[in-house]
Structure formats: structure tokens, C-alpha cells
């Protein structure tokens, strides 16, 4: 039976895939067979650093320090969430994970935490077969692995704990060894998306209960399923639509939704770029890496305030004048703020303020998408196209004729607009640059750290711009054009869906987005919580196409 099913999958895909012997053994017919494995959709997703930390905090408490260097994440098709299906762990990565695991475990078993978290009497010497220890490891393991441990896994853990206790002559050290192992293991570090067969005649499956619970929990809370969600998975309630919907609504109603939304927007807006952002400190002394931290936080607070607390329209993100500032940001923006040092205070830009394009005129956008020493209309334009409108801009070709680019100190070319003229007039350049430059040039009143300016090198800046035929003046015009652009709302719906399911949309899903999700999102007033619900309750959310069957 396995053989027949595998052959159906192999022919159903129709693509050439790497075939290698996968499983040799007996199947139902009792014959010995060698089956080539279908490639299948990626089923292992590496936990991100924030997911690792959130999971540890949820299980063991937020006073456990889980800070540590972790391997770099990969961005695929614009999202780190998609890249997580491709990451592999190099030896340096194992070194880092093992170190962090040990650090976390050492805290869980220390005298400050052990009674609350473990609560087994320390007096029992070196045998670990008592029910208390077994119970702790099984409970912690279930939460860490996001499913009950198999009997084999539990045995491995107990043997390891026994060994560790024997070497260090300390029962808690043994428990620590088991925890260190679990926190370094692929069952914890990777999200496993296990399929369940629906129909052997089609190439469709669905995620099993535990996998679906994980997908839901990481989507909405950016963390592992809590005890209630795990129980719903275990009992089978999650496999009924009423059971599923109840959990979706519970997660959406929780204050933890904010963490999930923050994680999404950090990914979508490319905020990981702040880690390596460098600005010229002679030209821009107000910049520091702390300003970068503030800038990110300003935008995330604005987003959460508008979309979550106020249940607002997504499109308003491009025109909202309410924000939150620290003293540092106030200094860059040139506005007075009530914030005491290192605290946040709400602020509202006046109607005449040039900073009226919502998150587009936040430092987090204009500073992130610029060079160290000057702004960049092209980079900002590309960011708007790719991050906010889901429109891919091709990379520059290798053989650009740079002789055409004029001298930056030429008195005729003092502003970026003048210097970028060649991008617009030279046919080889214009094809791509007409997508980016007219959009980005409207933000030229904001320099590379986000401060406002009216001149560049002594020449007045002309911030007129254009987005797909719509002409406007300055950033505020850009904000309005983005607000009115159907591509912007379609893009966030598409990206949020991809973020949730972990893969780029296929043809069928794209169709569903256009005919189903898009109109529903509009009917709901472009509010984010209804969009999240629509995605979580969609048929695609639990689907697995071309699954690998065990």
C-alpha cells in the first residue's frame, strides 16, 4: 500500500525531483520494498530567536534569561518566516544552541527556581526512576516538543538524567542534563509539520492536530502552544471546526496577540536590518544604535495602537499622525516631547506637519532604507514596492555603465533627483528605476536618519512623486497614494497568509486570495483581527499539499 501511494505522489507532482532510496522494509503486503521518497513540502521550520525566547519564557517563566547568540536567519521571498524552512545548522550553530540550552537549564534547576518549577525532593540520591522526576521531564518535554514524548524519547531522557546525576553527584544536575538535551534537540529547535492522510487518491493532506496547534500558536502568539491548546490537540477537539474556531478566537482575544503581531511586522518590515545599520556619526551625530532600537519600537507601537487597540483600518498606517516618541526620537524629528529620558510618550503631528505619511515617515522606514551617509530614493522606492506592495524589483544587472552617473560634487547635481536623472533617461536603467525612483524621491525631505530637511547641498528639494500614474507632492502625498492603493491591502493580506502557512502562495491560493480573502478583508474595513481570523480559519491554513506519508 505504501508503494502504491508513493508512486501516485511521484507521478502527481510531474516535476523532476531528486530520488534516492528512502525506506527499505516490509509493507502491508509483507514484501520487502525500496521506496523512493517524495520530496514533499518543507516540514521542518527552525524556531526564530524570538520564538525560542518566548517559548522558554512561557514554559519556565520570564525571569529565565534566554539571551544568546543564535545562527543567522534566512529571508526568502521577503519573509524570514519562509526562510525558516530552509535554514540548516552549521557546527557553530550547535555550539551556540548547546551553550544557550545549558544556560537556560542551569537556571531552571538553580535554587531560586527549582522548587517552583520542578518541586521534587532533592534528598533522593542517584536513581532517577521516581515518579516526580519522570513527571517533570514528561511535562516539560511535552511543552518543549509541543507534543507528548514518545516512550523511546522519554527513555532517552531518563537515561541521560541518570547519567548526568551520576557524573555530577547531583539529582538536579541530571534533570538539567535532560533539559539541556531537549533544548538542543531537533524536536525542540524545529517546528515539525506532520501530515495526516486525508485521501490517498489526491495529493492533499492536512496537518495533524499537534502540528496545526503549533502553526496557529506561532502565527498568533509567536510562541509554542500553551497547555490548553495542547490539550485541545491531544483530545481531538482541534480536529472539529467548532473546536478549532474556539481556539482561534481564544488566541485572538488574548493580550498575547500583540506579541504575535509585533513579530509579524518586524519580519514584514525587515527590522532585522537594524542590527547591522551603520550611519556616519560625523555627519549625523544624533544617530546611535539606541536610536535604531527606538525607531523600531516607535513603529511597532504605532502599529499595535492603530490596528490592535483601536481596531483601525490597515490603510491608515500610511496617513496616521499619532505616534509614540522618546526624547531621542523627538530630537531627530525636531519636536518637543513629554517623554522623560528613556520613556515613551504619545505624540500627534499637526495637520500641517510634513511628517504625515504614517510609518513611511518614521525613522524606522527612512533610516533603514538609506546609505550610511546619505538618503536613497532608489532603496526607499524599492522597499515600498517590495515590502508594502508585494511588487518585485529586479536586481541591477552586472554590466551597468557607470560612466553615465554624474559627479556628485558637480554644481549642477546637488540633489538626489538631479543625480538620479540618468536612471530616468537611460533606457537600460529606466525599466527598473521608474518603479522605484519616482516613489522614493517623494521622501527626500527626510535624510538618512529620518530628520526633516528642505535643502540638499544648498539646493531646494523637489519632493514631487508618482505611484503608478498617480502624481503627488511630498511624503504626505505618498502616504495618501499608498492609502488609496489596492495593492497595499492585497499585499498585507498575501504576506500575512504566507507568514501564517510558511510558504509562498501557489496558484490556487492566489486565486483564493483574490476572490475570497481580499473582498472579505475589505468588507471587514481592512481591520487586522478579522484578517487574522479569516486566515486561521481558511482551508489552506491546515492543508499540506503533496505530503510525505510515513
Amino acid at each position, binding site marked *: 500500500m505504501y508503494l502504491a501511494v508513493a508512486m501516485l505522489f511521484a507521478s502527481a507532482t510531474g516535476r523532476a525531483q531528486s530520488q534516492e532510496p528512502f525506506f527499505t522494509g516490509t509493507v502491508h503486503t509483507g514484501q520487502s520494498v525500496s521506496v523512493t521518497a517524495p520530496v514533499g513540502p518543507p516540514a521542518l521550520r527552525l524556531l526564530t530567536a524570538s520564538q525560542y525566547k518566548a517559548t522558554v519564557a512561557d514554559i519556565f517563566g520570564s525571569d529565565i534569561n534566554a539571551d544568546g547568540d543564535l545562527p*543567522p536567519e534566512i529571508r526568502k521571498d521577503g519573509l524570514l518566516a519562509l526562510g525558516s524552512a530552509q535554514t540548516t545548522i552549521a557546527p557553530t550553530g550547535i555550539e551556540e544552541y548547546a551553550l544557550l540550552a545549558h544556560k537556560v537549564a542551569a537556571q531552571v534547576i538553580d535554587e531560586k527556581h527549582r522548587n517552583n518549577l520542578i518541586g521534587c525532593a532533592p534528598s533522593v540520591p542517584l536513581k532517577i526512576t521516581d515518579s516526580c522526576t519522570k513527571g517533570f521531564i514528561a511535562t516539560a518535554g511535552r511543552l518543549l516538543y509541543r507534543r507528548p514524548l514518545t516512550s523511546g524519547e522519554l527513555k532517552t531522557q531518563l537515561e541521560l538524567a541518570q547519567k548526568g546525576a551520576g557524573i555530577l553527584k547531583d539529582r538536579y544536575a541530571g534533570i538539567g542534563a535532560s533539559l539541556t538535551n531537549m533544548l538542543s534537540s531537533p524536536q525542540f529547535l524545529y517546528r515539525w509539520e506532520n501530515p495526516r492522510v486525508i485521501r490517498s487518491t489526491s495529493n492533499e493532506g492536512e496537518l495533524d492536530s499537534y502540528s496545526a496547534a503549533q502553526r496557529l500558536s506561532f502565527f498568533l502568539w509567536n510562541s509554542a502552544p500553551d497547555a490548553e491548546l495542547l490539550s485541545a490537540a491531544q483530545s481531538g477537539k482541534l480536529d472539529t471546526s467548532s473546536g478549532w474556531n474556539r481556539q482561534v478566537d481564544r488566541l485572538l482575544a488574548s493580550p498575547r496577540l500583540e506579541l504575535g503581531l509585533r513579530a509579524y511586522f518586524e519580519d514584514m518590515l525587515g527590522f532585522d536590518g537594524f542590527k547591522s545599520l*551603520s550611519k556616519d556619526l560625523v*555627519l549625523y551625530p544624533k544617530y546611535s544604535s539606541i536610536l535604531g532600537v527606538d525607531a523600531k519600537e516607535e513603529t511597532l507601537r504605532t502599529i499595535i495602537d492603530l490596528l490592535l487597540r483601536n481596531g483601525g483600518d490597515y490603510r491608515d498606517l500610511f496617513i496616521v499622525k499619532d505616534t509614540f516618541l522618546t526624547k531621542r526620537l523627538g530630537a531627530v524629528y525636531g519636536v518637543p516631547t513629554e517623554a522623560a529620558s528613556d520613556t515613551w510618550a504619545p505624540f500627534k503631528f499637526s495637520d500641517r506637519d510634513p511628517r504625515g505619511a504614517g510609518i513611511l515617515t518614521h525613522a524606522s522606514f527612512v533610516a533603514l532604507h538609506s546609505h550610511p*551617509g546619505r538618503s536613497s530614493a532608489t532603496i526607499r522606492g524599492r522597499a515600498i514596492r517590495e515590502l508594502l506592495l508585494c511588487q518585485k524589483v529586479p536586481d541591477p544587472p*552586472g554590466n551597468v*555603465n557607470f560612466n553615465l552617473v554624474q559627479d556628485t560634487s558637480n554644481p549642477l547635481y546637488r540633489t538626489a533627483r538631479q543625480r538620479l536623472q540618468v536612471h530616468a533617461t537611460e533606457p537600460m536603467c529606466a525599466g527598473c528605476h521608474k518603479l522605484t525612483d519616482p516613489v522614493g524621491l517623494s521622501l527626500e525631505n527626510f535624510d538618512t536618519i529620518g530628520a526633516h530637511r528642505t535643502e540638499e547641498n544648498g539646493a531646494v528639494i523637489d519632493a514631487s512623486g508618482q505611484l503608478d500614474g498617480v502624481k503627488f507632492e511630498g511624503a504626505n502625498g505618498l502616504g495618501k497614494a499608498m492609502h488609496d492603493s489596492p495593492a497595499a491591502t492585497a499585499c498585507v493580506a498575501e504576506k500575512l497568509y504566507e507568514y501564517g502557512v510558511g510558504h509562498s502562495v501557489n496558484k490556487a491560493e492566489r486565486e483564493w486570495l483574490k476572490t475570497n480573502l481580499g473582498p472579505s478583508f475589505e468588507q471587514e474595513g481592512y481591520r487586522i483581527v478579522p484578517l487574522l481570523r479569516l486566515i486561521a480559519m481558511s482551508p489552506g491554513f491546515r492543508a499540506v499539499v503533496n505530503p510525505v506519508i510515513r
Partner: protein
Amino acid sequence: MRIATKLANRRKVLKGILGSAVVTVALPMLDCFLTSNGNALAATGSEIPVRFGTWYWGCGLRPGRWEPVKPGAGYEMREHLRSLAPFKDRINILSGLDVSLDGNPARVHWSGTRACSAGEVLDNAPSIDTIISGLIGNSTRFRSLEASTSEAKGAAANTVNSISRINSALINPPEASPTALYTRIFGPEFHDPNAAEFRPNPNLMVKKSVLSAIKEDADALKRQIGANDRQRLDEYFTSVREIERQVDLQLVKPAPLPSCTMPTQPHETPEGTEVDTVSTNHALLINLLVHAFACDQTRVLNMYFTGGELHKSGDPTTHHTNTHEEPIDERAGYQVKVAWYEEYIMDNFAALLKALDGVKEGDKTLLDRTLIYAFSDHGLAQSHGLQNIPIILAGGAGGRMKGGNHIAFRGEPVTRAGLTIQRIMGVNAESWGTGSMKTSDSISEIVA
């Protein structure tokens, strides 16, 4: 003197100083550790190992300014490379080597890097350092160590500032923080090879069991997933085995190393791409890497010096942007600002050579026992040129490489350098490179 007697004398010396308490003391460099010709360690009788390193910089060097005028052993160092003059006789300058795309798309600031480091312009082949560390990295705690001066993404499409790749998915990521690199190498898990006392650390014994237990459930896990994921899982388990190897080494008393001293713990420094920041961090990082060589913590280093995003304080444009936008100065005949960056880069390369040369090992220095492979991504960065990629080989490779030569190639692939290096380092390579960059010819002039 017999070895046993030497050891007894050491213990007596220590006890005399510190009573009879057992302590760990870093012993001074004593030539009695070495055999009489200074080339082997007396305690083990094994040869002092040959080390390897890559040093990478982006945006090349302007053709016509760096190549010595004449080829051959008596070459004259160009003004542009004057910071390398003290090492003239111990480096080989290779000019005129090219990258062939063979119809593949040109990925700017990356195809050339891949060609020099892996012999192909695609992302599949392992990089040269992983080939060499596969051979010589088995007995050191770290198979190789990677560092970069900044996490900032340079001009290239690569997402991680490291040329060290096991395959297209498995990249060895760099450390950019000197304090973090110090902790990694010389922190709590470091054991001083010259320490008189060695007791296997019981925490390491537990760590060994922890790592070993990870593989217990491997078979059951692998059965659940498709072929691609299985490969990823296999790579994960291979990485686990690599760390197990590391732990096993740490459980054994290391042989004493006279040239091993502890580096000073660096202070926290700011990170960034401003040139003074970069050279400060570079100096701290290479100091740690050189000490790591001396203490045999690794025999392979990879320093990713810059991807092109260097900038001078007060200058709104970066090195990379200048390579494209700066006009040729009428009087000078070249891009003056770019030339400044190129000389700055060479200054920092010289700093690495100086740091290696500052460690004595017997009658030679660490530089004599190392082969450093310095290369870039382009020849003429202004037009993303893939010809005349600047390549400099430095060091004595333990006597296996002859220095002081300028070899001017014409129409030859960059892989000739990488092939020669591998053979010098002991890799049994019949050929190296793909497509028209495949070669089986070493550069005989530099092989001892």
C-alpha cells in the same frame, strides 16, 4: 634530556614556587619543549602544524596600480601596496587571473568571491577553507574560526559576511564582536595547554552525554519527513557530531605549547563600517585569531575584512559607492578616494601579517608556518570586472611555499591559486574548479 625528566623538573619548579598545592600556571616559553631543530614539539614528537587562513576584501584593486611592473622573483613593490613592503620576500603577488562565468549570470560582488573561494560562480561547491579544515582541522577544538569586522551587508548578494561554506545551505557564520570571540575561544571552556594541572571537567563529560543522546531518536525522526528535510536533518546531526568531537578533545590533556599565551580580554567596542571602527575591531579580532593559532585551538581562520561598505567619517559615500560614482581624477589618472580605501585595506592586511609574524614558534614565526590566501571579488570594481582579480599569498606554509614572487598571468583562471594552495596544504587534489575554470596546474614557481 629525556622527556620524563623534563616533566619531573617542571613539577619540581612549580612546587618550589607554590608549596605543594596543585595549581595551574602558565609556563613561560621554554625551548626545551622543542626538539633540537625547533620544528617539532618535544612532548609529542609531532611536527608543528601548518596553518591556513583566508583574508577577504570587497571591491578589488584598480588595475594598473597594484601589479608589480615586472614578473619574477625580483619584483618591485608598487607604491599602492607599500604597506606590504616589509613582507615583500614572504608574499607572492598573483596578477592577471580571471573569473569565467561560463554563461552563468554575473552576481555582482559575489561571483568573483565564489570563484576564488570555491572554484565556481554558483553556490554549490564547498569553500577552500572547508576542504583544508576537513583535512587539518580534526585535532583542534575548532575546525576553523570565522570573523568579520561588521555584520553590515556589503555590496554583495550574500546574506552572511563569510566565504566559508560547506555547501549552498551550510554557511559558517562569522563572529563580529571581539568580546564574544574572546569568550568563545578563551572563555570558560578554554583549557590552557601549558597549565600544569589537567582534570577532565565533569561538566564536559555531561555535555558529551547530552550531545550523544541527541542522536538516539534520529532514526525515528528521519522516517517522518521528505528527502529535502532529511538532508537538513542529516546536516544538523553532522554538526552535532562536530561539537562532540570538540568536547572529546577538551576531555583530553592537551600537549604543552610554548608559543601559547593568553590574549588580553578585549573591552566592548562599537561596531560599524566607519574606517577607524573597522580597523580597531579588525586588530582585536586578528589578535584573538593569532592567539588561537598559537594555542592550537584552530589551524584555519577566515577573516572577512569588508564587503565594500567602508566609509570615512564625514564622507556621505561608501567605498563601494565611490568605486562606481567617483570620476577619474584628471591629474592623477585614477579614482583618488577609492585609492585611499584600497591602501587602507592593504594596511589592514599588513596588520594581519605583522600579528602572525609577532608570534615566535621555535626559530621561526607563526607567519612562516601559515599560508594566508587574500583575495577579492573583482578586478576593476567600477565596472564589476571579473578579470585580473587581485590575489596575494602570504607566509611560509611551514616551508612549503616560496615567497618573494610576482607571477603575471594572462587568461588563466583564479583557480590556479586555489589548487596550488590546496596541494601545498596537503589536499590530494587532482584538479579544482568547474567549467572553464577547471585546472590541474599548480603554480610551480611558488611551491617549495
